[in-house]
């Protein structure tokens, strides 16, 4: 028992450094997912038919293929075939970001579709172009409505980030596995790793809940 405790204490600085890598992967992936997911959603809702088809294909592909397959496909396959030399960290972050973009596009799409049609009509009636109407009227409302769904997506991406271990990214899971295979203290070490993920989920979801409250439109209940 004490041996296990000592192993965790000894490994903690090393594992905590891994949590920084995990945070890097998650922030990168969520950021990429956000910056791609919003235009994808706009294209899905307001784009011409051919664009909707292309985006539909993108979403279908990234939601349909398992994470591990995509990580290997891009890191060992596509990126090296294209002659791009990404680090495992970058490749893992990009792939998680591309997948998250597919899921996030559905979050934003749902939020946009839930807005009354009159919002766009009123914006157009003022002489706004569709681009301005989407930018100043639709997105500010849709993004507010998306925070709960986005919080859900955050917790999923956080957990998925552990799979980048398979590429050799030195995040929490990879480091825990490394220490465990040397000390044979699997149980306490993986409990510690699990607790780190739980704590990061708690902090992130809590933070997004505060954001949700802060951006809530006064007098509006949802």
């Amino acid at each position, binding site marked *: 028992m004490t041996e296990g405790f000592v192993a965790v204490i000894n490994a903690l600085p090393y594992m905590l450094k891994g949590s920084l890598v995990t945070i890097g992967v998650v922030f990168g992936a969520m950021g990429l997912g956000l910056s791609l997911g919003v235009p994808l959603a706009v294209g899905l809702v307001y784009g011409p038919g051919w664009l909707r088809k292309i985006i539909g294909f993108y979403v279908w592909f990234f939601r349909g293929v398992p994470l591990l397959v995509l990580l290997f496909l891009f890191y060992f396959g596509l990126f090296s075939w294209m002659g791009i030399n990404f680090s495992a960290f970058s490749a893992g972050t990009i792939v998680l970001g591309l997948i998250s973009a597919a899921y996030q596009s559905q979050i934003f799409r749902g939020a946009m579709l839930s807005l009354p049609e009159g919002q766009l009509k*009123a914006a*157009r009636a003022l*002489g706004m172009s569709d681009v301005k109407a989407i930018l100043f009227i639709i997105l500010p409302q849709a993004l507010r409505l998306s925070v709960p769904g986005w919080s859900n997506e955050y917790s999923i991406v956080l957990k998925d980030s552990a799979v980048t271990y398979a590429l050799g990214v030195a995040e929490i899971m990879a480091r825990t596995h490394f220490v465990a295979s040397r000390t044979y203290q699997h149980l306490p070490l993986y409990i510690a790793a699990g607790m780190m993920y739980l704590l990061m989920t708690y902090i992130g979801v809590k933070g997004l809940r505060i954001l949700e409250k802060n951006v809530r439109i*006064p007098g509006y209940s949802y």
Partner: protein
Amino acid sequence: MARTDNNPVLKVENVRKSFGDKEILKGLSLSVKKGEVKVIIGPSGGGKSTLLQCINFLVVPDEGEVWLEGRKINYAKKRELYAYRQQVGMIFQDFNLFDHLTALENVQIGLVRVKKMDKVSAHERAAAELRRVGLAEHAGHYPAQLSGGQKQRVSIARALAMDPKVMLLDEPTSALDPELIGEVHAVIKDLVANGMTMLMATHQIGFASVLADEIIFMEDGCIVEQGPPTQILLNAQCTRTKEFCAKITHLSADS
């Protein structure tokens, strides 16, 4: 009420619109002169709302032409369409205020984002328009914090801030509690007194008869009859117009 200019501000010619195989507008024409108020009445589903939305191309007509101050609008040209819409104020039945903006921001956003006015002047103008509709003290409130009547007055202020040449009002009081209708009617009356050119669809026949220079009775996508209020309401030529007016007058007498 000065009636100086004889050329129509707004002219609509032979507008047709179908949704699927249901023809909503069957080749409608009308015109509104400067300072004139025309009121469209008629049963629901008769095409009033579609007509108003076709006029500023929120619904694209299948056929027909729209002219503003003698210029035919080519709505396929985006720039021309956006410039035209700025000059046509639209009031919706269900207000359509931007829910994430305060009353003041609702009025201001068109000035800043469309007219490219600087923030300070836009703020001043928006505040002035809110004062005009009697809502100066509600400038900081969000739509969800306003009553229906207040929301509609904000939406009128939003349209007025753009200095429209003509206003289209699509049943502006139909979604309101009876006791809130009066405050919106007062604002509209005030606009008419100041010479605003208007085309309004409404079921408020009493209000229409006081305000309108001409009443247009519309049914099944056609104009059945049009003329001064006294003629349409008291001495209609068509039996359908008579029937409708009798019913609707009876209703408003009840309430």
